[in-house]
């Protein structure tokens, strides 16, 4: 798991190091994602800032309103007090009392609201002080009026202290208001700037992303175009490859056919002169016998006429010569027949069918029962996997191998011949025929598969055909045959066949 992860990382690093359309597109996509993230963050902060700015704007408005309220309540209080002083009617005092009640709270609020701005705060405190002073002056007059000292009260008013305070207050509030208005304008500008920046940043990011997307699109389109071209090329290459394989296979099977035909023709043309050699040898033999009879007649009639040499020639030399000619011709005939048989095997039509190999080999083993019991030998056939192949060819192959195993057993020990097999990966089956017989020396391992070649002591009848046929048949069935053998220990023939025989199209000729 660990190594797999590290392998994946290594592969990823390799991918990043290698220039490829995938990498470019990935990088572009990453850039676009990062850009989007930046835009998101910026927008988030901008919105936050706009919210802040809006809060500030509200705040400024509140400060201004509060300041105006303070002024309004003071004016109310003043008007109310004066009305009372003029009329003496207590009901005019309602507004004064309410102002006296509300003003401290409003003043404190004003101071509290300006805590963020020291300059304005100082101004607010001045306003509070002035307002409190003004209220105190009003209160003094009111106290006098309540006590019935109306004239004193009017004197206080007349002294003009209150008016002065009010003038100062108005100035201060006006300044405060102007200040706040400036602030407000600045903040509104700032807020607009922020909004504008957000729009610009978004637009720029959008444009950038559009560019990235266009680049990705162009790269991908080019890449897909290249892929399509490459695919077409591969398809074309495949098509031509298939064509080539077909041509080669055709040429090969034609060549094979020609070799078979050649072997066939050669063997027939070799046979024709052999018919003559045999025929005229017989004629010579007949003639020799006729001469011999004649000589015998002459010998009895006139013995002195007969040369001893002529008698030897007719009775010994000629029959001996004829014997050798006949033996050689017969051998030649057998060899020609072997080539003919081999060429015929190669031309036989193969018909694949599913074969019960265990049964098939057991049957072969039973057919050599006589020889095995004579040789004190045993044939063990294991459970073999089935194969889909040509029955006759397979029977001949295993028949030959088992025959050979029995034929070349070592008489010094009890013979044991085993047939085993298994299925292997890739749709193949393997079989092996093992014996504990004489074995074959290393240098003959290839030779024994050649036509007319034999190995070891030549004390068994045979032409050296069996294994040549076996290898020929195995190859026709698309298989291979190998030998493992040690002289004096035994041999193992290993066969490997495709599980299902597929006929080449050239195989259908007869």
């Amino acid at each position, binding site marked *: 798991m660990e190594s797999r992860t590290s392998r994946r990382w290594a592969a990823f690093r390799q991918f990043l190091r290698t220039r490829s359309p995938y990498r470019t597109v990935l990088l572009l996509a990453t850039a676009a994602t990062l850009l989007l993230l930046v835009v998101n963050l910026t927008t988030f902060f901008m919105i936050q800032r706009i919210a802040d700015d809006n809060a500030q704007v509200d705040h400024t408005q509140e400060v201004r309103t509060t300041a105006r309220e303070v002024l309004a309540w003071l004016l109310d209080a003043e008007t109310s007090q004066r009305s009372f002083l003029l009329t003496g009617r207590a009901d005019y005092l309602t507004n004064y009392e309410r102002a006296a009640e509300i003003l401290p709270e409003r003043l404190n609020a004003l101071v509290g609201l300006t805590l963020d701005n020291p300059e304005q705060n100082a101004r607010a405190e001045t306003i509070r002080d002035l307002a409190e002073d003004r209220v105190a002056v009003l209160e003094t007059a009111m106290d006098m009026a309540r006590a019935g000292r109306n004239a004193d009260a009017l004197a206080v008013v007349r002294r003009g202290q209150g008016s002065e305070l009010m003038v100062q207050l108005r100035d201060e509030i006006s300044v405060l208001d102007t200040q706040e208005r400036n602030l407000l304008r600045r903040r509104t500008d700032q807020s607009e700037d922020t909004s504008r920046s957000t729009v610009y940043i978004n637009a720029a990011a959008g444009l950038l992303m559009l560019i990235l997307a266009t680049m990705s699109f162009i790269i991908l389109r080019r890449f897909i175009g290249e892929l399509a071209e490459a695919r077409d090329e591969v398809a074309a290459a495949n098509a031509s490859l298939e064509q080539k394989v077909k041509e080669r296979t055709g040429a090969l099977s034609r060549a094979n056919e020609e070799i078979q035909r050649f072997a*066939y023709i050669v063997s*027939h*043309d070799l*046979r*024709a*002169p*052999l*018919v*003559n050699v*045999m*025929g*005229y*040898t*017989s*004629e010579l033999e007949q003639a020799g016998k006729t001469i011999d009879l004649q000589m015998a007649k002459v010998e009895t009639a006139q013995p002195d006429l007969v040369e001893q040499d002529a008698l030897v020639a007719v009775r010994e030399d000629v029959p001996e010569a004829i014997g050798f000619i006949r033996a050689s*011709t017969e051998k030649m*005939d057998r060899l020609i027949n072997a080539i003919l048989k081999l060429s015929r095997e190669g031309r036989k039509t193969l018909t694949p069918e599913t074969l019960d190999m265990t049964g098939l080999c057991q049957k072969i083993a039973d057919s050599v029962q006589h020889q095995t019991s004579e040789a004190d030998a045993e044939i063990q056939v294991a459970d073999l996997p089935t194969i889909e192949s040509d029955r006759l060819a397979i029977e001949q192959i295993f028949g030959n191998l088992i025959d050979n195993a029995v034929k070349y057993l070592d008489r010094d020990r009890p013979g044991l011949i085993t047939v085993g097999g298994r299925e292997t990966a890739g749709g193949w089956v393997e079989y092996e025929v093992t014996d504990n017989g004489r074995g074959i020396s290393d240098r003959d391992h290839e030779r024994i598969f050649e036509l007319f070649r034999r190995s070891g002591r030549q004390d068994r009848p045979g032409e050296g055909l069996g294994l040549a046929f076996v290898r020929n048949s195995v190859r026709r069935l698309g298989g291979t045959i190998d030998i493992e053998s040690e002289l004096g220990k035994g041999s193992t023939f290993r066969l490997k066949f495709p599980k299902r025989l597929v006929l080449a199209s050239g195989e259908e000729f*007869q």
Partner: protein
Amino acid sequence: MTNNPVKIVMVEDDHGHAKLIEKNIRRANIANEIAHFDDGGSALDYLFSPEVRANGPLLILLDLNLPDMSGTDILAKVKGDERLRRAPVVVLTTTDDKVEIQRCYDLGCNVYITKPVDYESFAGAIRQLGLFLSVMQSPDID
């Protein structure tokens, strides 16, 4: 058969074989006239000459491996001729390929004999062919 005996036409390029065949036919006491041709062309010329077509019953002994043409071509021509096709044809050749044998019978050959290398059986076969000829009724060609 009495006044117009069967004439044997032998087409065989190998003189040795021809001689052996003839010897063995004679040994079987067949005295019919044997006309020997060692190539397909001259054999066809002879077979298709007016006097041969007009006269007498024939028996053709045919080898398949000829220098100028295949024996099967001769067989096809003979069996394609409305008069000659009645003549029995004995194919006597080295080939024992079953496709070739089938082809010859398909073309109308009457007997197919493989020349064995074993001389005794060869001589035996020819002698039996001779015996066969002596009892065989050959159709008149006309």
